[in-house]
C-alpha cells in the first residue's frame, strides 16, 4: 500500500491471465457448492411431494380419521393407523426410558471413573454395537432374547408386578416389550457414544473447579460436568429417539405385527415402519391399501420431523439459557 511501483519478482511469477483464471475457478467452485447445498433440500421437497401425492387417495378418503381409527381391514378397504402410531411411540419411548439411564451411566463411568486403560476399548466395543445390521438384532431377538424373556423375565414381571395392567395377560413372546428391549440395545451405542464425546469436551477446568470447592467426584459430575454438557446430552438422546422411531427390521421381527392397541406390554403390537415394510410388497387391498401405506409413511415422516424440531427447540432453549459457547 502506498507504493505505486510493482516489485519485479511478483510479475515474473504470475502473468495477469492466470490471475483471472483463478477467480473464474473460484466462481465455478462456489456455484458447485451452492448446487450441492441445494440438492438436499430439493430431495426433501421431492420426497415430500411424492409421499403427499401417493397418499392423496387415502388422505382424501379417510382424512384425519386415519390417525385415530384403530381398524385396519385391507379386505374391506378400511384403514386406521392408530395402533401402528401408538406402537411406534410406545416402543420408542420405552426404549428411550431404558436406554438413557444406561447410556448416560456408561458414558459418565467411561469419562470420569473408569481406569484410563479401559476407557477407549470399552467405548469402542459399545460403538461397535451400532455397526451390527438390524436384521441380525432381529434374529438374535427371536432366537435368544424372546426365549429368555418368555421363560424368565416375563413370568417374573407378571408374578411380581402383575397388579399393573401393563404386566398382565398371556405371554406370546413377540411383543411390544420385546421390541422395546431390542430397540434399547440398538440405541444405547448412539446415545452413549455421543454423550461420551460431549462429556469429554467439557473443559477440565470445570471438573477441577468443582473438586477444588470440596465436591466429591460424584458431585463434580452432577453439579458441574453434566450440567455443562446438558444440551449435547439432549442432542444425543434425540438422536437415539430418531433412530428408535424409524427402526424397521428388528422391530418387525419382534413386535408381533398385530394391528391392535393392548394394555399389556406382553401383547403383540405394530409399528408404522413395520406395517409399511410388511405390507407394501403385496398390498392386497389394492390401490387404496397402497395409498394408506404411503399415508402412514407420510405420518412417520411427520412424527420424526416434529420430534427433531422439538429437540432442536429444546437444545436451543437450553443453550440460550447461558451466555457462553
Amino acid at each position: 500500500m502506498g507504493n505505486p511501483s510493482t516489485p519485479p519478482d511478483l510479475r515474473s511469477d504470475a502473468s495477469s491471465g492466470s490471475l483471472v483464471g483463478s477467480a473464474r475457478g473460484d466462481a465455478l467452485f462456489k456455484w458447485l457448492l451452492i448446487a450441492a447445498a441445494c440438492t438436499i433440500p430439493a430431495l426433501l421437497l421431492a420426497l415430500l411431494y411424492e409421499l403427499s401425492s401417493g397418499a392423496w387417495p387415502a388422505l382424501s378418503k379417510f382424512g384425519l380419521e386415519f390417525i385415530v381409527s384403530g381398524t385396519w381391514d385391507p379386505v374391506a378397504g378400511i384403514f386406521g393407523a392408530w395402533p401402528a402410531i401408538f406402537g411406534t411411540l410406545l416402543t420408542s419411548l420405552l426404549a428411550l426410558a431404558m436406554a438413557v439411564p444406561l447410556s448416560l451411566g456408561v458414558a459418565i463411568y467411561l469419562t470420569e471413573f473408569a481406569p484410563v486403560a479401559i476407557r477407549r476399548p470399552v467405548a469402542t466395543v459399545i460403538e461397535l454395537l451400532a455397526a451390527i445390521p438390524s436384521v441380525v438384532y432381529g434374529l438374535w431377538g427371536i432366537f435368544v432374547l424372546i426365549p429368555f424373556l418368555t421363560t424368565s423375565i416375563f413370568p417374573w414381571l407378571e408374578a411380581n408386578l402383575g397388579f399393573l395392567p401393563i404386566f398382565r395377560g398371556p405371554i406370546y413372546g413377540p411383543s411390544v416389550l420385546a421390541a422395546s428391549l431390542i430397540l434399547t440395545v440398538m440405541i444405547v451405542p448412539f446415545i452413549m457414544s455421543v454423550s461420551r464425546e460431549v462429556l469429554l469436551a467439557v473443559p477440565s477446568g470445570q471438573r477441577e473447579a468443582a473438586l477444588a470447592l470440596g465436591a466429591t467426584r460424584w458431585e463434580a459430575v452432577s453439579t458441574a460436568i453434566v450440567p455443562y454438557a446438558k444440551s449435547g446430552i439432549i442432542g444425543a438422546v434425540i438422536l437415539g429417539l430418531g433412530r428408535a422411531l424409524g427402526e424397521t427390521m428388528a422391530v418387525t421381527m419382534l413386535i408381533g405385527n398385530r394391528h391392535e392397541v393392548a394394555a399389556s406390554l406382553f401383547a403383540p403390537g405394530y409399528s408404522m415402519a413395520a406395517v409399511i415394510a410388511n405390507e407394501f410388497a403385496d398390498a392386497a387391498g389394492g390401490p387404496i391399501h397402497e395409498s394408506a401405506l404411503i399415508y402412514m409413511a407420510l405420518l412417520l415422516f411427520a412424527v420424526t420431523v416434529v420430534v427433531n424440531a422439538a429437540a432442536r427447540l429444546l437444545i436451543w432453549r437450553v443453550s440460550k439459557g447461558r451466555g457462553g459457547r
Partner: protein
Amino acid sequence: MSGPVRLETRGLDALYGDFAAVKDVSLRFPANRVHALIGPSGCGKSTFLRTLNRMHETVPGAWIKGQVLLDGEDVYARGVSPIQLRRRVGMVFQKPTPFPFMSIADNVAAGLRIDRSLDKSRIAEIVERSLRRAALWDEVKDRLGASAMGLSGGQQQRLCLARSIAPEPEVILLDEPTASLDPQGTQRIEELVFELKEEFTIVIVTHNMQQAARVSDTTTFFYLGAMVEHGETKQIFTAPREERTEAYITGRFG
C-alpha cells in the same frame, strides 16, 4: 514477625508415574501472609501448589511422597478426606472457571451448596459478603441472577475468588491467577490478594516476577522440580543467595 505456621511440607515429592515433578521440598508458610512460588515453566511450582489441597492426585497416575501439614495435621494421613481438606484450602485457577450454566450468585454459592444445609437468606448473606471481599459486589449487585458468562475475564476471575472464599477456607491457593487477564484485571487481583491476607493465608504461583515482588511476603524459587531458594521476598529480589535465583530474577534464563 511471622505468625503460626499454617501450611508446611516435609520432604515432599510429587510424581506422575515414575517422573518426579517436585523433589524433596520442605517449606513452611506462616499464617496471614502471601507466599509466592516462582520459576520457569515446568519447574514444578504448579504441581507443588496442587499437592497442598490434594488436587494433584486427581490426575491419573499422580502421587506423592513426604508430608503436607495443615495446622500441624498431615493432610495425606490415612482417614483424611480430600473433600474436607479442599473446603479448608480453596483454589483459583489460571483460567477463570465460572460455571457457565449458573447465575453469578449461584456460582458464589456453589461451594456452600455442595455440603451444608444453609437456608436461603444465610446463603444470600454469604454471597454478598464474598462478592464484597472480592471487590465485585458493586459491579454485579444488580444482576446477581444473570449468567456468569456475561462478565469480563477479570470479573470472572474475581467471581472465582469470591467462590473460593465463600466457604471460609483458611488457605487460598492461586495458580497464576492473572495469566489470562489484562493489566487492569491483573491489578485488581493483586490489590485483592494484598487485602485478603488479613483473613487468609495465600500461596500464589506466578510467572510474573514483578507480581511476586509486589504482592508477596515470602518468595520461593523453584527450578527443575527442586526448591532452590526460599526467603523474605525483599531478600530474594535484592540479595539472592543462590546464583540461579539471581540469574532467573534478572532475566538471564527462564
